[in-house]
């Protein structure tokens, strides 16, 4: 046991000596949580649109004002005719066009019927649908104001209550997701590199001939990163509490324990990668290029897992970040207790034991 601590101490000195790495390791998550916590949102707003107003009458002006006033749209410019439309769309920034025909108001008043045409840039289909819906509902509002439909009989009102995130902000969704993403990649990468480095330099052989169990050699490499990552979790939580104003609704100790569990899972994944690879470059490319986008997509915070094809839904289960994201979301945002996350906890524990087991097995074979 004393030897083990000596080893950990040695590894710690290694890590602490490299000031630059340490600075990046602590600074990076802080900056990222801040940027993403404030900037990321799936909401569609401030979309630039063009208006073609052939009518230029009271009604068309009023509707244009209403559209302009909503936070979804920003009128970029007004075109004099539809022949310039294509150009506007192809040069980039315009997402939608609203077209009023001639005599819009007089048609509305005399024939009780008038038309508005909406053209959306559907290269982004979701945005196109959303914007068309927003514009339609703004126009429908205008119409019902005209008609004072509210006085109609048999009125059904719906009272909507938004749970957990009444202001519909992006942060409650993105912060747990980004946390899972950052912790996962940093932990996997750091352990993977530090073990492969010894292999590449040839110092691993020396360690292994020492009267010291291989498993302890490996574990002692993971411990410093466990401690560093725990400090990272703490700084992320402090930031999201004080700067992003995201209160931690559930039990803090539970959240911390789960985070430590997740860190351990990722560290074992790093050990597994380092056992399977021979050079630092391979280990790094595998853990970053191979894992960045899959982790991002399959953890479920960007795109709902239930929308994916069934094989990919099944695949998503082996991404540890998915389970951690669910755990953080439930404890931190929804304020639930252990009863709501025990299944996910067991999965993480199982993954850790499994990875540790096969790493040890293939490690022994390699070195014999």
């Amino acid at each position, binding site marked *: 046991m004393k030897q083990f601590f000596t080893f950990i101490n040695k590894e710690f000195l290694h890590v602490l000596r490299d000031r630059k790495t340490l600075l990046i390791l602590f600074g990076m998550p802080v900056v990222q949580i801040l940027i993403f916590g404030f900037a990321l949102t799936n909401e569609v707003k401030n979309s630039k649109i063009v208006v073609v107003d052939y009518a230029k009458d009271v009604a068309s002006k009023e509707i244009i004002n209403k559209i302009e006033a909503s936070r979804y749209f920003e009128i970029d410019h007004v075109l004099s005719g539809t022949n310039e439309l294509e150009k506007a769309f192809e040069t980039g920034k315009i997402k939608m066009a609203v077209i009023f025909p001639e005599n819009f108001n007089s048609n509305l008043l005399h024939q009780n019927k008038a038309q*508005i*045409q909406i*053209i959306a840039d559907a290269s982004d289909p979701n945005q*196109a649908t959303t914007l068309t819906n927003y514009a339609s509902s703004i126009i429908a509002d205008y119409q019902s104001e005209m008609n004072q439909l509210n006085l109609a009989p048999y009125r059904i009102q719906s009272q909507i209550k*938004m*749970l957990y995130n009444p202001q519909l902000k992006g942060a409650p969704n993105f912060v747990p997701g980004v946390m899972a993403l950052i912790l996962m990649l940093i932990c996997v990468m750091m352990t993977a590199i530090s073990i492969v480095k010894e292999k590449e330099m040839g110092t691993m052989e020396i360690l292994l001939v020492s009267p010291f169990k291989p498993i302890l050699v490996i574990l002692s490499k993971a411990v410093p990163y466990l401690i560093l990552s725990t400090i990272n979790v703490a700084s992320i939580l402090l930031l999201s509490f004080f700067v992003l104003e995201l209160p931690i609704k559930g039990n803090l100790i539970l959240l911390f324990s789960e985070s430590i569990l997740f860190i351990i899972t990722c560290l074992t994944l790093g050990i597994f990668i380092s056992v399977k690879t021979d050079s630092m470059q391979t280990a790094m*490319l595998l853990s970053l290029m191979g894992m960045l*986008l899959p982790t991002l997509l399959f953890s479920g915070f960007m*795109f709902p897992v239930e*929308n994916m094809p069934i094989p990919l839904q099944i695949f998503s289960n082996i991404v540890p970040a998915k389970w951690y994201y669910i755990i953080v979301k439930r404890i931190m945002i929804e304020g639930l207790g252990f009863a709501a996350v025990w299944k996910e906890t067991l999965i993480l524990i199982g993954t850790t034991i499994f990875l540790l087991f096969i790493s040890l097995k293939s490690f022994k074979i390699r070195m014999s």
Partner: protein
Amino acid sequence: MRILRFLLIKEFKQIFRNRAILAIILAMPVIQLIILPLAANYEVKNINLAVIDNDHSDYSRDLITKVTSSGYFRLTGYSQSYRKALHSVEEDKADIILEIPKNFEKELLTENQQQLFITINAVNGTKAGLGGGYISSIIQEYNNQIRIKNIVPDKFNPMPVIEITSSNWYNPNLNYQLYMVPGVLAMLVTLVGGFLSALNIVKEKEGGTIEQINVSPIKKYHFILGKLIPFWILGNVVFGLGLIVSWIFYGIVPLGSILLLYGFVVLYLLAILGFGLLVSTFCETQQQAMLIMFFFIMIFVLMGGLFTSIDSMPEWAKTVSRFNPVSYFIDVIRMVIIKGSTFQDIKPHMLIIICFAIVLNFAAVLNYRKTS
């Protein structure tokens, strides 16, 4: 020129000797491009709905059928109480609770007014907003039906009606993959170019071989070019493979000119490789280079407009994304492939990328001189 040729041969030999890395460079982007766009779907469909029907009348049943047959909602079950329904939200089995009060039908007909209670899990604000919007408009429609059923209609309709006709340009079938595949391809090309170049010079530093190069008659620009050209070629190959994959697996053929697309990528790769080189001149170890690259690539990915729209970001974040070369690439690749934009349309993007390429590479060469 001869020196450069030898250097290139050396670099290529090093790349081809390491099978694992070659596989990562070529196979990984292809596999990811085949799989990932299938996972990146933000259609808000299949919203799980729990219903508390305290009324059990014809009206309440009609309403429930109307909601579930809309295609947006999936009825996951009836709950007896709000507490139980809330529990199913906590377990992620339901996203929305619709509660119909007792005597809904009777009071609606006698008192002219009735309320429905809707509770939405809003951790994901967008999903909640859209789900709430859908269910409200279905209820509105249902409300109109009831009015039509119960009010004797006038012979003519005195209320003015605004008809809205909408059309979707460039992607009339609203195919989400057409949108995602080019974006993911842009990302993968960036990952390959950025990571490889960032690692490479550092590797020579860490291995000590850079000292030998420094004392040899190799000029600095030879050295830099020797590092840059192989990855530049590989990046172009990966991009070509990506275009083929998106054609075979997703049937996506660029509407605009492929030549124009390649013309942009050729310049873009110079910029991103320059960035990788710059990072590697700042670092002493591969670990540091990876960490810094990871830091930037994550910002590039998440703020590049690949998944979330840049328009919706706050002003300061829009400014940040103006310094993100990836955001220009994603813009251009989508414009040329989906809309068939021409050289005139993407000229501003191209000029900016050329600036990036010049500034980044120049900085890398300058900084490399200082440190060696």
